[in-house]
């Protein structure tokens, strides 16, 4: 049984309990007795898996919820899921923190003088009905503003709107991709975003689009990148003015002049015109003149880099371009997205059959319109669901004040945020893992949302609330089921339930490519309109558009590029740091006009002079306004004043150094023939591991440093989340970390660092009490009960992967319920570290023993490997000569870190690209 079959079977098992109720925590005060037959689907010691959808962002990745004793304890990706392909990002891994968040809204809340009053659902719904009636009778419109909504819930909102007379507003998303949609509308007549199978391209050029962080469907892009990068002929250029994780992973990062995106794309359009794939005559004619020299100047790339790109492009069979992110979040972003769309159209990449489903999403201009409507007082009841417009709206919209204007402002929310603070009535919605539903992130791809646990509090699903408000007597679940069976048929419904997704037939229609509508915009492009120094607001892999900020785990896992865990900061180029004489943690003031912000600095290698970046979640509001042409938020501020304030603010930077200090952590060169064969003399006979010797192979070419593995490890292994104070002291507890190492040219290499389970482990012999020892399966084990806490093992670990429990780490209620019962919670004063998920090895070993066989290759999958969107981590038994890990360990690219020390570690790294 391989991993996939295993998980499939687990899915089928969970399907059999599909109609049954889920494990309930409510009214269970007794320990579950082993004498009583299991009821309620709860078998002590047995995990149930529920296939559902992650909704931490709207990408719609498939998630399996692992439920133990009625409690969801872990989220894993659904293998072969059409969106996420088995992986999850760190936000998805952390989504349980939302379910168990201590600040969850537990009952409906009504605004009162000086706070909120807990009220009953009857009263809350009664008030809404009352106000809807009043508004209707007095001729005021009621409106419904949601975050991106797809699938049945979208239909439910329409249904509710019809019956209750509520107008559905364009949905609000910070990442609305409005410019792109507008361009596709102009070029292809479809205001949608086509699906980008980047693995099918041979040359990929991304312009500002942060594929690996937040753009559309990052896990999907990561998985496809992983497939593409293992091919020889794949080449990826990423053009951006600043430095992003995506740029760090591209083969070539083209550092643009701010505003040079259009020139780059136009140049590409012109040069590729010579090949067989010609852009329409009209387009070329309307484009302003741009000589190669001008292009080199306007993009700031220099002719050599530019030529490298154009030659690769010209030589490519299927080149692909994707624009987005910071490149369209600026004035002139419309031209950038149009030019990218033209190139896509030329090369046949505009496939809308699986378009990203942004049909209901509006743009920031719509928010401005709403603000105006609120100001004029024409709105009776406003519903705001799953979105935080107050957080994103520019100050001049005065949204928070104007939300007091309607008769009743109703919010659907799970956690309090900037928007709920301004509302009159907050309805607590159940977490996705407590609800029924579905999503349709792409056309024709339905993913299932199903409860893995009964609601922890007095919460309801949004659909259920709307159904009740619409006056339908049935439950939302029944309503969903009748719609599903109507749409898919009974047979497909079973598949839907067991797999968690359903792929419907793609519509055959082709989009018509007609650039006529684009001509006007193209004519107006001014390539000389580039800028100098600037401040960019960049999306963050940890908080998305800021919505995942409340999840503490995402602050615990550091930002991949800066390795800062807690706190806010601005990334400062090395050159400016030198000029301003600032060091990490010293505060700088960035200002422009009457806007200013003070943030501690983090010196970021790879940023050109004058390019400051700050993460979206570290700035309040949208300080740089909205682009009226596209309705995108502007993310670039030109020519900010930057000065040192003289204040020092401690910054939790986890990396002791950004450079690998020439220490061979990633050796150059790496190929075996070029490598000096190191022969370690041995004084003693080697110890034998007859059956298993567990080992791991990490492909650094695939690793994108996204940190999903680290987050997964935290959840799987009950690793304590310690908080800022401990992080400032270097007391983070992560068993697995991503170490970013910057080369002199600004390129980054990510090295996942975890316990290396050395064959000759330096930590073991120094332990006076045998708390660290080598088990017969080749694992370096830590016996918590035995540990007296001398910390010698940690001192002697060259990889510094051991973590000491400085405090008794008590998880807050109800976060405690997330603890994996298979893994002990460590006491204070003991050392801990990565175990290679020994609990999973044991479980697989038990299963194998029952069947009288050995553990098969791929049967054991540590949490990190399972979560990895790029499948960079392979785990297995070195004694099995057929195992994938054995093969990889003998690959030419394979090496071990600090091999010179003779530790013979069991983690093999496969060197990435040059």
């Amino acid at each position: 049984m391989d991993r996939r079959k295993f998980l499939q079977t687990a899915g089928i098992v969970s399907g059999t309990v599909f109609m049954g109720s889920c494990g309930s925590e409510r009214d269970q005060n007794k320990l579950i007795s082993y004498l009583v037959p299991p009821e309620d689907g709860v078998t002590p010691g047995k995990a149930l898996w529920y296939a559902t959808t992650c909704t931490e962002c709207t990408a719609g990745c498939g998630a399996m919820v692992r439920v133990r004793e009625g409690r969801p304890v872990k989220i894993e990706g659904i293998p072969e899921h059409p969106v996420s392909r088995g992986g999850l990002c760190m936000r998805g891994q952390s989504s349980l923190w939302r379910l168990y968040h201590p600040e969850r809204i537990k009952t409906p809340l009504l605004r009162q003088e000086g706070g909120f009053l807990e009220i009953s659902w009857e009263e809350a719904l009664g008030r809404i009905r009352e106000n809807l009636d009043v508004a209707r009778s007095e001729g005021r419109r009621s409106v419904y503003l949601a975050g991106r909504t797809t699938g049945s819930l979208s239909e439910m909102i329409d249904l509710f709107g019809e019956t209750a007379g509520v107008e559905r507003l364009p949905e609000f998303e910070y990442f609305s991709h409005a410019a792109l949609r507008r361009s596709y509308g102009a070029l292809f007549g479809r205001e949608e975003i086509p699906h980008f199978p980047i693995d099918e391209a041979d040359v990929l050029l991304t312009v500002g689009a942060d594929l690996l962080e937040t753009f559309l469907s990052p896990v999907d892009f990561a998985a496809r990148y992983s497939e593409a990068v293992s091919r020889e002929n794949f080449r990826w250029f990423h053009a951006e003015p600043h430095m992003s994780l995506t740029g760090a992973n591209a083969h070539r990062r083209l550092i643009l002049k701010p505003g040079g995106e259009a020139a780059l794309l136009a140049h590409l359009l012109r040069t590729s015109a010579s090949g067989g794939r010609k852009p329409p005559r009209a387009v070329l004619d309307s484009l302003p003149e741009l000589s190669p020299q001008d292009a080199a100047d306007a993009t700031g790339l220099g002719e050599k880099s530019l030529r490298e790109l154009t030659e690769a492009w010209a030589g490519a069979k299927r080149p692909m371009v994707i624009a987005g992110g910071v490149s369209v979040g600026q004035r002139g972003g419309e031209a950038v997205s149009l030019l990218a769309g033209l190139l896509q159209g030329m090369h046949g990449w505009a496939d809308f059959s699986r378009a990203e489903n942004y049909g209901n999403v509006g743009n920031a201009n719509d928010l401005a319109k709403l603000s105006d409507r609120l100001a004029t007082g024409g709105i009776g009841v406003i519903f705001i669901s799953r979105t935080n417009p107050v957080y994103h709206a520019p100050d001049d919209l005065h949204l928070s004040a104007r939300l007091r204007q309607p008769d009743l402002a109703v919010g659907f929310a799970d956690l309090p945020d900037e928007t709920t603070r301004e509302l009159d009535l907050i309805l607590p919605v159940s977490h996705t893992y407590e609800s029924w539903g579905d999503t349709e992130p792409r056309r024709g791809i339905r993913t299932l949302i199903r409860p893995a646990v009964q609601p922890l509090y007095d919460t309801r699903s949004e659909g259920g609330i709307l159904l009740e408000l619409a006056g339908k007597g049935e439950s939302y679940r029944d309503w969903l089921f009748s719609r599903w069976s109507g749409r898919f048929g009974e047979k497909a419904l079973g598949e839907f339930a067991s797999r968690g997704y359903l792929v419907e037939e793609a519509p055959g229609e082709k989009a018509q490519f007609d650039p006529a509508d684009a001509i006007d915009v193209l004519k107006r492009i001014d390539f000389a309109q580039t800028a100098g120094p600037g401040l960019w607001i960049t999306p963050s892999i940890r908080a998305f558009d800021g919505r995942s900020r409340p999840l503490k785990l995402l602050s615990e896992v550091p930002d991949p590029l800066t390795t800062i865990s807690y706190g806010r900061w601005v990334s400062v180029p090395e050159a400016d740091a030198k000029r301003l004489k600032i060091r990490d943690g010293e505060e700088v003031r960035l200002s422009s006009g009457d806007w200013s912000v003070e943030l501690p600095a983090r010196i970021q290698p790879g940023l050109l002079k004058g390019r400051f970046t700050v993460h979206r979640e570290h700035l309040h509001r949208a300080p740089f306004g909205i682009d009226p042409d596209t309705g995108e938020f502007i993310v670039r501020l030109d020519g900010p004043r930057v000065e040192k304030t003289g204040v020092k603010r401690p910054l939790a930077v986890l990396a002791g150094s950004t450079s690998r200090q020439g220490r061979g952590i990633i050796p150059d060169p790496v190929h075996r023939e070029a490598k000096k064969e190191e022969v370690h003399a041995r004084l003693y006979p080697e110890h034998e591991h007859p059956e298993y010797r567990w080992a791991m192979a990490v492909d650094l070419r695939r690793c994108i440093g996204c940190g999903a593995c680290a987050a997964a490890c935290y959840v799987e292994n009950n690793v304590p989340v310690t908080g800022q104070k401990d992080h400032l002291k270097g007391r983070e507890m992560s068993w697995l970390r991503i170490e970013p190492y910057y080369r002199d040219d600004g390129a980054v290499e990510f090295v996942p660092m975890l316990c290396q389970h050395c064959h000759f482990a330096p930590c073991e012999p120094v332990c006076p009490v045998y708390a660290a020892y080598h088990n017969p399966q080749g694992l370096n084990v830590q016996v918590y009960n035995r540990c007296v806490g001398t910390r010698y093992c940690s001192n002697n670990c060259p990889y510094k992967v051991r973590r000491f429990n400085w405090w008794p780490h008590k998880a807050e209620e109800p976060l405690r319920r997330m603890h994996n019962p298979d893994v002990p919670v460590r006491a204070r004063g003991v050392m801990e570290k990565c175990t290679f998920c020994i609990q999973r090895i044991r479980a697989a070993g038990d299963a194998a023993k029952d069947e009288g066989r050995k553990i098969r290759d791929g049967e054991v999958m540590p949490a990190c490997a399972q979560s990895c969107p790029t499948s960079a981590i392979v785990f297995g038994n070195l004694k099995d000569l057929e195992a994938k890990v054995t093969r990889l360990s003998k690959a030419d690219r394979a090496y071990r870190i600090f091999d010179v020390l003779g530790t013979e570690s069991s983690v093999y790294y496969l060197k990435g690209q040059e």
Partner: protein
Amino acid sequence: MNKTDPIEARERFESDVLSVMGRPGFRYFAALGFCAFLVTLGFGLWGWQIFRGVGVAGISHPVGWGVYITNFVFWVGIAHSGTLISAVLFLFRAKFRTSFNRAAEAMTVFALMVAGLFPLIHLGRVWIFYYLLPYPNQRLLWPNFRSPLIWDVFAVTTYMIVSLVFFYVGMIPDLAVARRRLKGFASRIFAILSLGWNGSLGQWRHYNKLYIFLAAFATPLVASVHSIVSWDFAVSIVPGWHTTIFAPYFVAGAILSGTAMVITLVWPMQRILKLENYITTDHFEAIAKILLLTSLIVSYSYIVETGFAFYGEHPFEAEQFRYRSFGDYAVLYWVMIFCNSLLPLTLFVRRLRRSLPYLFVLSLLVNVGMWIERFVIIVNSLARDYDPYAWGTYTPSPVEIGITLMSFGLFFLLYLIFLKVLPILSITELKEHHG
């Protein structure tokens, strides 16, 4: 000294030494009280650390050992010169040792008592410290004899026991004297403590052998205990620790700090207790010469260590020594060089060597320098080892500083008590040398 009447001379030795044990004055109680305060404070802080977790200390990741282990090594080092003076100089028949040996032996015992606390204090779970002891238990598990920490347990306890026995055995004839000279309850206590010593040939003939054997057993300990302590570091693979010269280097350092501590203790003792007749400038000069010698050995070790790093083509080791000299703790490093290597060179000048106030100040600075040496070795090496991502720094927390002060308080408290309850010079040996 007057050689005319031997009985009178002997009685004067007795009364001079025993008069120290008289009723203490205000200053004594003030000093005692201050030390007791530090001890109470320190133990309170330790209690707090046990209650809250080791997190109240400043140690963290990657610097898992800090001031606690620094103190441990420092105090074990202090202990060494006691044994050196009493055992090694005895075997070498160096007569000047008589003036110091009781004080030095007491210093050994008390320093070891203080040192022994620190491995306990630094444990994450001190309540199961007995897991480190080899005894049959229900867990059927024994300690790991390959761990240097277990060697420590054995070496330090052995050293403690042997030093205590040596200290006690050397005192038995004096205890009998105290018994004879003192009255009442004290006399009875000393009678028991002296085990009925009466100076008969039957006791003396075995006593002489005992003392020689003990000295012979204790002498290798001078070299081995601090070697083993040094192997706590040298056996690891941490750059800056993993080096073969550590054992002799540490032993020399231990004796350097120990002789400095002898001067620190004995000079005030000589001044306050008016023992100028017994502890002379010549004696101090002899100690100062040992100090100078060991300082030279230590300086040589510094040079060798840096040479290894410089010529070793080992990037980790090279970075370690660059960091020591110019990194976050560079100031401490140069203070260490000044105190341990440069300052003692002045002892080549005879006048300075014989100036007791100068020696006292120098000894204080050498103590400081030797404490810093251990700090520099421990903290720097851990702060910058192999993985650059895991580099970090360490600052002692108030709890650690308080507990460090406690260790000094405890040491001086024990020493003050010793001054008042036991003969501080070897009366019998004084008599023997006087003839």
